[in-house]
């Protein structure tokens, strides 16, 4: 029988480029995420609405079929409102997916003291945050703006080049809306994940932020007799921005610019909280 002595050997080969190492975290975190059957099932379920949208677009352009079933062809029109409702629907699903998947990103590393192992390597805190946030960003992109653009392309292929050219702003609005929402959700989920070690509590807090935020907004508005309370409601702020982007004519208590600035401020606060917590060792002064 052959006997091998296990000796330590140094590595002398080429190293991977430093810029690409955040993708290592993305790969491993994503694999971990899909180990949960529930999360995988929910992720698949998030494609129900895009498939329904595709079916609707197909029906709208199948006049003969609509005549056969006796539905007026003008009942559903594929316009800015159609995509606005799609953005709202998928945005809600993206929020729920973030509530399930987001808290598990950083909290296990903190709970098990793994951060020094990352940062003792040529790997910075910014790369760590980038790697972890890319998991959510790519996951949410897969269920939001990518299917949205596919819907838009299908509608364009049915409606013709002129329609596509005239309504290109809808595609841009859709991508912009989703990107803002993804940024807000990713940073919020990661900040909560970094500050709360228990992932279930972090997920619950994220849900609470959304629902209690809306309640708090209304309470502040009523008690203070003001509209400033809406700044506490992430949902209201996002809808305000979406209304402006999709040119939906409804009256909002705050302007789209104010809402956008408020969302940016939320992102900055979350990033600050995240960078404060994501460090090898916490210094207790």
């Amino acid at each position, binding site marked *: 029988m052959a006997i091998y002595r296990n000796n330590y050997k140094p590595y002398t*080969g080429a190293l991977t480029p430093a810029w690409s190492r955040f993708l290592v975290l993305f790969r491993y975190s994503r694999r971990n995420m899909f180990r949960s059957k529930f999360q995988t099932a929910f992720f698949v379920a998030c494609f129900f609405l895009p498939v329904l949208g595709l079916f609707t677009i197909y029906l709208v352009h199948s006049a003969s079929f609509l005549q056969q079933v006796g539905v007026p062809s003008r009942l559903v029109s594929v316009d800015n409102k159609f995509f606005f409702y799609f953005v709202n629907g998928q945005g809600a699903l993206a929020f729920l997916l973030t509530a399930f998947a987001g808290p598990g990103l950083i909290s296990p590393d903190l709970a098990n003291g*793994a951060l020094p*192992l990352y940062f*003792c390597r040529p790997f910075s805190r910014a790369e760590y945050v980038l790697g972890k946030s890319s998991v959510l960003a790519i996951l949410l992109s897969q269920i939001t703006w990518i299917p949205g653009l596919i819907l838009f392309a299908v509608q364009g292929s049915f409606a013709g080049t002129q329609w596509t050219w005239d309504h290109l702003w809808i595609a841009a609005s859709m991508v912009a809306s989703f990107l803002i929402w993804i940024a807000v959700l990713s940073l919020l989920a990661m900040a909560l994940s970094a500050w709360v070690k228990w992932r279930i509590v972090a997920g619950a807090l994220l849900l609470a932020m959304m629902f209690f935020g809306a309640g708090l907004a209304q309470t502040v508005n009523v008690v203070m007799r003001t509209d400033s309370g809406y700044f506490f409601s992430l949902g209201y702020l996002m809808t305000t921005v979406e209304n402006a982007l999709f040119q939906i004519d409804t009256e909002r208590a705050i302007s789209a610019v104010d809402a956008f600035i408020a969302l940016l401020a939320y992102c900055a606060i979350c990033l600050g909280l995240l960078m404060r917590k994501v460090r090898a060792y916490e210094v207790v002064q």
Partner: protein
Amino acid sequence: MSTTTHLGAASGENATPPAASLPPLIELHGLSVRFGQREILRSLTASLQGRAIGLLGPNGAGKSTLINTLLGFYKSSAGSARVFGYDIATEVRNIRGLVGYMPENDAFISKMSAVSFVRMMGELSGLPRDVALERAHEALFYVGLAEARYRELGTYSLGMKQLAKLAQAIVHGPKLLILDEPTNGLDPSARQRMIRMIREIRDGQEMRIVLCSHLLRDVEETCDEVLILKQGQIAHYSNLDLERQANKRFLELEIYGANGDFTEAIEKLGCECAVTANRMKMVLADGVETRDIFRLAAEREVRIRRLNFRRDTLEDIFLKAMETDAQSLKSGGSGNGDLQK
């Protein structure tokens, strides 16, 4: 404790080159670290160049803070430091590329198998995916976790977690291995295994080691240089081998067939000695070597069964350093006076 030289046996088998021939590993130039109002490290100045350097000190002396500062986790409030010639303030990425670090506390990812964990850490250090996988297996074999490498880390015992931490620290082939309390929480046999492994790594010539511990035995068994810290200051810095050589004047002998003639002959050489039954203790006079003792014994047909060089144990050095430091603190000294070698 004493070093035993069995007669007739070859000595100096350790192939480790003398520390003086190695380039400086860590250079500290008035390094201070402050957390808020509290000064944790106070103006440390030293040049450490051993193959295996032990950081010793009581709890709260600043050992882990020094390591964390060298790794760039904490910012220095004054002074500077270099590791392999790289400045810790501006070139920390280069330093981290050369270092493998085994932290003191639990550090793992619970829902991950050991091989995935070590592979991921290798990839984060820059190893390509396939190489990282291969080396993760090798590292886990090397530390003795081959059979358990597909188990989730959360199910590991404390000793196994320590070994997994060691595996992730060596997977990428670092030039410097920093071990923070590597034997914490290990049972005696696991501790022995860990110490043996550290010595193997040290003697393998590929890596240099900084071992931080409050256990004197761990440092004594693995290190050739020791830096003793107390209250954020350097209390003592010494080369253990040189310390041992310096104390080779004190001998303990086990002798048979001796009479007063042998003792008289030794005293005539200027040595002081005391005899009890078959034991003889002596302090060699200047210019007298052990071969003179052997010659006298041969002339008088005295059999020397055992000859021990008594030396300061690390505990003696440590206690002496603590006393010196206390005295210098009382007299207003900085405690760094005996650093320069």
